[in-house]
């Protein structure tokens, strides 16, 4: 029983990790950027939802539908942020060493963090939306409804992105740029624009996930790093540029963390996930899905 409960808890948050990591993997795979500011984009998305709900007059327990209605706004807002970030800044290091992208995006992350503190203070905030009867109980396993909504929301975001990349013209262009930017340029693809769109999509999905995080947990200016680091683990696990890999990786990471908290001790959760990051890089650099991280660099 306990086991099932821990796994369910893990899957419920794991879907959010997965949605964050999908965007992280996309940028890494297509633009060649390790975006250390990815978690900050999630944070911004969370604040979009928080403030919209607060201004509509219900931060203390507003309707869940109002909160859900803010998700598209967060997606759109963060798409714009991501597109501009790539166009104005990241494009200058897109072809540089992967390591330099770590530095630049770290710089972006601390700037965003402190601007958020200046603008909204460090007080943790959360959207008080909820249900009168908050959980579904199946055979003694508790499933909070709001988390279930966030779970499906995050999965939906992930699948939408996957479908977009598979079926649309722009999606095919993105994949072409990921595989070979030079060849893509030769066949007439606007590489700079495509990369900016990719960054925008990645930021949007992070922002949308942030909305759900604001609903089920809380948002705070300093929250980003934890999500960025989890994305690292998931992408290294799932393989670079693989959306199914990131999805499975996210669900697994969530489960591993909750199982650790449940059976071993919650103090070891992060030690376990970060050890996984190092060990996976060493023993299985290709990830379980998709291209190896080594190949992805080129």
């Amino acid at each position, binding site marked *: 029983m*306990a086991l099932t*409960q*821990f796994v369910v*808890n*893990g899957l*419920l*948050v794991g879907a959010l990790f997965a949605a964050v990591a999908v965007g992280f993997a996309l940028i890494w795979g297509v633009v060649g950027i390790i975006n250390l500011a990815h978690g900050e984009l999630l944070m911004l998305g969370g604040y979009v939802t928080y403030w919209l709900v*607060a201004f509509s*007059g*219900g*931060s*203390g*327990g*507003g309707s869940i539908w109002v909160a859900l209605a803010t998700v598209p706004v967060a997606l759109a807002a963060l798409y714009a942020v991501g597109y501009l970030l790539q166009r104005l800044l990241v494009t200058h290091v897109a072809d540089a060493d992967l390591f330099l992208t770590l530095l630049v995006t770290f710089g972006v992350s601390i700037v965003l963090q*402190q601007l958020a*503190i*200046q603008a909204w*203070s*460090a*007080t*943790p*905030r*959360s959207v*008080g939306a*909820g249900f009168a009867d*908050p*959980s579904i*109980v199946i055979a003694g396993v*508790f499933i*909070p409804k*709001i*988390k279930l909504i966030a779970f499906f929301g995050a999965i939906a975001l992930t699948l939408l992105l996957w479908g977009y990349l598979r079926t649309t013209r722009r999606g095919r262009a993105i994949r072409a740029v990921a595989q070979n930017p030079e060849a893509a340029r030769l066949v007439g693809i606007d590489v700079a624009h495509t990369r900016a769109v990719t960054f925008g999509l990645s930021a949007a999905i992070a922002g949308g996930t942030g909305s759900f*995080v604001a609903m*089920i*947990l*809380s948002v*705070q200016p*300093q*929250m980003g*790093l*934890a999500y960025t680091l989890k994305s690292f683990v998931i992408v290294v696990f799932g393989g670079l540029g693989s959306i199914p890999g990131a999805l499975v990786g996210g669900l697994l990471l969530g489960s591993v963390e*909750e199982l650790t*908290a*449940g059976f071993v*001790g*919650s*103090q070891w*959760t*992060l030690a376990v996930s970060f050890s996984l990051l190092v060990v996976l890089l060493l023993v299985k650099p290709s990830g379980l899905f998709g291209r190896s991280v080594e190949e992805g660099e080129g």
Partner: protein
Amino acid sequence: MRTDTSRRKFLAATGLTGVTALTGMGTAAAQGNTITLGGSMSLSGDNADLGQLYRDSYELTIQRINEAGGVEAGDGTTYELEMILRDDETDASKSRAIYQELIDREGVDYLLGPYSSTVTLPASAVAARNQRPMVEGGGASPEIFSQGNEWIFGLLPTADKYPLSSIEMAMAQDSPPESAALLAESDTFSQSSAKGARQKLNEEGVNIAVDQTFPTETSDLSTLLGRVRSSNADILILAAHQKHAVILAKQMEAQNVDVDMAMATVGSLTSSFKDQTGANGDYVYGPSSWAINATFEDSVFGSTGEFVSAVESEYGYQPDYHNAAGAAVIQTFQRAFQQVSSLGPTNVRNAIRDIQFTTAYGNVAFGDNGVIDKDMLVYQWQPQAGGQAGGTTQTQNGTATNGTQNGTATQGGGGGAGGSGGASRKVIVWPESVQQRQPIYPMPNWSER
């Protein structure tokens, strides 16, 4: 920073802006006699929300003292107070250099402590080495005061005391708890609190069914709460900060955790806690070193009630014990200056040792280790039936009670929230001598709310 000369100019300019802009007190004393208090505070970083409360209190208190003519020191001169407050980003590696800079470059002799134990520790070492007295209202780890440091004075009860009064309260109830769950964040302060709780629970013969530490980064407590639920613990103690207090209150219902008492050492008494948790925040307990409805006399503000209204009118929020402790930090120095025959770090330090006075915060006097002798009160969020109050039991003073009600009203209005949570009030439920209402113990089960 193109050339050396421009850098030197830059540094020189820094010195100037450092004093005038950061103090917030444009007018120097007419006679030019000023005493500078200096310190660092968490103005950004993890604890920026609480750091702001101290800054507000420091500024307000100094402003009031200066408006009333300044400090008439024991040497016969009247001084204006001036403050230099730097930002340590809640980073323990910054505080050392900041305090050293204040002492050497700004010539500060009297130090205001930073917020949080980890930042205070290195700062207190600088104070000791340079023999400058430091009074602080934001570092509660017992380790700060167990180093034999004779230059540090703390206005908060030490961290290990935070959970004690809540446990005492539970033990005094008709059906005292037999087992407890203890969830602690992995930081100095929370670990000290957890240690205090553990010791107390063992003394009282309460079984600790769940004893878990979680990393600061943890944002979801579902699994831990599931363990609490299946352990059937009677009371739940969370040793952590506001972020986790909010999550706890929000997730207890979803995880159907029914305990007789749920308390958080920090962060469950702020208005933003209640705004975000709504009705789920009801019945949650929290400790405070300060009773907002107390009737202590205060030489700067008049009384506790007047201090509360001063903060409310100046900053638009209801003060909590951080504010009161912050004001008491400044007043401790003010008193010490009044008592010494000639100013100087050592004289002032000696005066602080023997000091005894009351402020809005309460009686101020320090033990041999430099810590104020104070116990925690226990507050609880109690839903109000009709919204009309006044029926408080055993309140000391009617005016003070009104202050509390005004405060609650302001807090409901601030942020435009708290609406659906119903009109809940934060009331003192322990110890009995000052309690406003009986604790609602056990907390009602979720199914009955």
